[in-house]
Structure formats: C-alpha cells, structure tokens
C-alpha cells in the first residue's frame, strides 16, 4: 500500500472532509515511525491538490506488541 505522510496541522485540516458518501479520511493510521499516513486510494478520491502533490511511499505498519498480556 502506498501512503503519503502528513503533519498534525494537515491532519486537522482534513477532519470532517468527505471523500465519498458517509466516508471520511482515516486520520488514525500511523506508520512504524509514528507518522500520520493517508492511503493513496483516499488521496485519489479527493480533490485536494496539496494532498495529491505529496510524495507517496510504501507503507510500513507499526510493530504492535500484544497489548492484552
């Protein structure tokens, strides 16, 4: 999956924006380094130019240790 990394301020600016009916950006996706990520499909679904201009990188998910032990 390809993603773009955004800042906290950019994340705030995307809150509440519809990208499809009843569908918003997933603003709670983080990579292995704790960066906020937006998936490329969502980027393609919107008409926000600054978002489309961001470089895409391969998503590296965070390593989740078993939180239930």
């Amino acid at each position, binding site marked *: 999956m390809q993603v773009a990394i955004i800042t906290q301020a950019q994340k705030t600016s995307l809150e509440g924006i519809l990208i499809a009916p*009843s569908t918003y950006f997933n603003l709670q996706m983080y990579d292995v380094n704790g960066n906020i990520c937006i998936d490329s499909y969502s980027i393609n679904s919107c008409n926000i130019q600054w978002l489309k201009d961001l470089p895409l990188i391969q998503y590296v998910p965070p390593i989740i240790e078993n939180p239930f032990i």
Partner: protein
Amino acid sequence: MYGVGFGYGAIGATTKRSGGAALNPLTSAWVTARSITDATAINAVNAFETTINPIISKFHHIHFLFNGDATKNNYNFIGNSAFNLTYFGTIIHASTGIKSTSNGYFKTGYIPTTHSTLNSAHQSIYSRTSMPLATKCVFGAYGVNGGSSIVAPFWDGSPRYVFNQNGVYTDNLLWSIPATWSDSRRFAIGSRTSSTAVEGGINNVYVAKTSSIISTVRPDVEVYGLTMNFQGSPMFYSYNEISFISQGIGLTSSEISLLNEAVDTLMTTLGINV
C-alpha cells in the same frame, strides 16, 4: 417466498409489490429510505425479516452490506439512525460485501456501556473470507476500561471470542477454536444471556458455551468494523469481506440458530453465500 422480478413502488405509507402484497414494515422502510430497487435483494430481505420476526425486538442494529453502495450499506435496518455506519479511509462496496485493502474501517455508533447491558448482548457477522492467521480483528471493541466485545479476532493464529469481559487473552476466552481449523467463513456470533452464560458459533457451526466465564465489564468505546476499536483507535485491521452485521441483546441457543438460518438463507438467495 415471492418470486424475483416483481415491481415495487411506494403506495401511501407502505411499499408494496406490484402484485399488491405489502412488504414487511422494516423492509418497506429500508426500500423507501435508501431507494432500493433490486427485486432479488428486496425479496430476500423481506423473507429475512419474516424469519427473524419473533426475535426482531432483540436487535439494536442490523446492516446489510451487499448493496454495492456506501449510503445503502450504512442504513440500520432496525431503524435507529444513531447506528448508521460511518466509513473511514478506502472502503470497497461490492455486490457481495464490503472490505478494505488499505486500512479502511467503519464506526457503528454502538457503545456497549451506553447501548447494551452487561449480561444480555450479542454481536454477529457474516464473513465471506476466512480470518487471516495473524493479528486481525473484523468487528469489535476493547475499552479504556478493559472491557472487550469482540467477534472474530485472531491472535497468534488462534481465533478468540470474548464478550463483556475484562481483557481478551487466554483466561478470558469465550472459546478458542483450534488454529488447524482454517475455514472461519460464514456466520459468526457471540452472545451473552446471563453473567455466566455465553455462547456462539462460527462457520455455521454452534461451537461452544461455558458457564465458567463471568461477565465483568462492557467496552466503553464504540464498536468498529473491519478493525478493532482499541481504546479509541483502530487497530488490527482486517481485510475480510463481510456482508452482514448485527448487535443487540442476548440471544439464546435457539435464537442463535434462527438468526444463523435466516442469514444463511439470505446469502444463498442473493447468490453470495460461501
């Protein structure tokens, strides 16, 4: 059972077939609210409503996720719009179900501490794909308060189900299905009918029940789909394709069987059973 191919239209407050037979009330409301025109789907859902009518009051929300459309899929068949779904990220809405391959998920609006009771609750799902043998969750919540309400999560290759209990790991299992059982498709449910009675099934098979696990706490966060709401954040995304979900008060063994049969028939009639 009505045949496929009838016409539909709103007549007064009740949607009727062109032949004059009225639809069941919830089906009628669904058809009107979401402008449903697929005769096969309408017939199938109407028959579903007929089947589950004896237990209809036990549902807080039911979602049909095979409409191929975000707005049609988000509708709560029971009618309370507070439980209409909201999607986040990229969701694929197909005529067979919904899924995401890029960490999309949905919120149900359903918070167990607010909307359910400790000793009477159920949660069900129809998945067209087996659960991956990895750390994934298809439908669930784990609260800040430590309460769990989870159907079909896997941890380290072992599917685990818990309901209104504290934590989700070994000593809190509702049951654990052997990891060698790789086919975890179709209907799955967890249900609690008292502080000590929890039961359910997966893959159209009634699996187990126990009286040794006592309810302790309900999750205080909203239940998510295609992932788990882990204390306020989506975690353990699943790429499963799911076609149906429900939540409500506890169902007994016979009621579980009734719902299982109704969902299975619904999927078969639609031609999307697996």
